[in-house]
């Protein structure tokens, strides 16, 4: 904790509103029906940062992201979420999305019945456009080739690209990536990493959930570890990598 506090002080020197972080999650509790899954998660992110959210299967990482994106399932029962001065916890899913929060879900959720291009066009229907199609296609030539194919018939990796591209098609402030590398060949992982760096350059803030902790931490500034819906570690990526006990217990690396 102290490390973060120190870093915040350093940043504070440069900015006016030091107290309000870019994105803040304050003690959120979320339920699937009656099962209590997210049990008081708190975290802060500064603008342009990449935060790795780590933990074992079933720790509640996906649930936390879904609660932040306001999907309604799990239902947020208490706690606050602030994007700058906007109270995300009072919003509904589409309002959060319009405020600039984009979730790339773990199972990609490419929409059946729509072609690759339609999937992208759909992302630009609501106000707040991001990259245009040309820019997307130039980053993802694979998608350009397949633009008229039905989205769901893409290979697993191609679908992942489409899901990331769909988020980029929106005006992004906070990107939530749920296991973006899953099922991707190492070459593509590198490609996506490059894109994430690019995104970071643009000042977009990212939370990344990833089982491939090594790859995730390579990219991230800071890390949070969840266990049974609670935060058990917050700190810099380096701190985590330097702590063999944490590595062994939660990351098995």
């Amino acid at each position, binding site marked *: 904790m102290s490390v973060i506090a120190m870093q915040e002080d350093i940043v504070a020197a440069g900015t006016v509103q030091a107290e309000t972080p870019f994105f803040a999650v304050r003690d959120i509790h979320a339920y699937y029906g009656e099962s209590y899954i997210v049990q008081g998660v708190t975290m802060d992110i500064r603008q342009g940062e990449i935060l790795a959210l780590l933990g074992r299967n079933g720790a509640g990482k996906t649930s936390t992201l879904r609660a932040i*994106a306001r*999907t*309604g*399932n799990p239902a947020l029962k208490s706690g606050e979420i602030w994007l700058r001065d906007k109270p995300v916890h009072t919003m*509904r*899913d*589409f309002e959060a*999305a*319009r405020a600039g929060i*984009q*979730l790339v*879900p773990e199972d990609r*959720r490419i*929409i*059946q*019945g*729509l072609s690759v291009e*339609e999937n992208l*066009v*759909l*992302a630009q*229907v*609501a*106000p*707040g456009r991001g990259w245009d199609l040309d820019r997307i296609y130039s980053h993802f030539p694979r998608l350009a080739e397949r633009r008229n194919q039905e989205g769901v018939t893409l290979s697993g990796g191609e679908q992942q690209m489409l899901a990331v591209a*769909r988020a980029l098609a*929106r005006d992004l402030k906070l990107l939530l990536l749920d296991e973006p590398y899953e099922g991707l060949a190492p070459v593509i992982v590198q490609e996506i990493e490059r894109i994430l760096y690019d995104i970071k350059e643009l000042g977009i803030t990212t939370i990344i959930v990833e089982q491939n902790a090594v790859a995730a931490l390579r990219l991230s500034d800071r890390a949070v570890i969840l266990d049974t819906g609670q935060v058990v570690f917050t700190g810099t990526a380096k701190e985590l990598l330097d702590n063999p006990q944490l590595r062994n217990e939660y990351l098995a690396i």
Partner: protein
Amino acid sequence: MNVIFAQLLNGLDKGGAYALIALGLTLVFGTLGVVNFAHGALFMLGAFCAVTFRYLITLETVTVDPEKLSPWGAPLEIRTPLAQNWLGDFGAVLIDYSVPISILLAIPVMLVIGVVMERGLIKHFYRRTHAEQILVTFGLAIVLQEIVRSVFGANPIPQPAPQDLRGAADFGVWLGMAPNVLTYPLWRLVYFLFSIGIIGAVFAFLHFTTFGMVVRAGMVDRETVGLIGIDIGRRFTIMFGIAAVVAGLAGVMYTPLLPPNYHLGMDFLVLSFVVVVVGGMGSLPGAVAAGFLLGILQSFASMTGVKAIIPGIDQIIIYLVAVVILLVRPRGLMGRRGVMES
């Protein structure tokens, strides 16, 4: 030969009507994915918009003459229509054209009914099972039906077409035949053109805007569509409202052909489901094609010659065709993959 021609004409007309009646259902059922057993009730409510409108403009002042008694023993009533009193000739025209003019009443009324229905009830059922959708919409249909019955009674209430459109047009003469060989009711021609118009308008709306795509996507995966910033709930409401208006207008214009009663909707319910499914779930052109196909085949199957060969064919033709088409083409004429298949 003339008979065949006449039946073809009739089939086209019937098909147009089927397509129009099924159109509203396709929007809700084929696009929003709600098995809407209240569709027939919406059609019926549309028809009763026409009845109400006519009732309003033919309102009469009733004065009772206590001196005289009617033959059944009640005091004699003297009635004077208001519209004619106040508006003179224009009032008479208004009454004459009450059916087409009641469209103006039906559009806002049906829109409100549709929106209220969606917001109040249907909204909560998108994510429920089809079975539960059936139960709730069927219940709703019964309730609407009973309300209409308690207001308007159980007997059909005839709605005349405007005087000028009441008779038959000598269609044959237009095509260069002898007079009186091929005549066809004017109002049916009007209904046909009206169907084409409405169908065209709905197509244009869904085709030239992204609205249709968004709604389709929302039906497949509501959550994801919400996550990319689309307020899908509002669009579903609009879609449902449009569907209610389309169903209602189909009902309004149908009244001169079929005197409406509270039960009208149920009679058309099964037919519209068959048309939509034979056309293929989620396909508007499919529903229209199926409407025409069934209309034409039904007309031909009703010819005495055909019935002589296969007795009873006219009774079952619609269902027989439905079976054959669904067995030959897995998703009806133009169905989309994955729409309501599980």
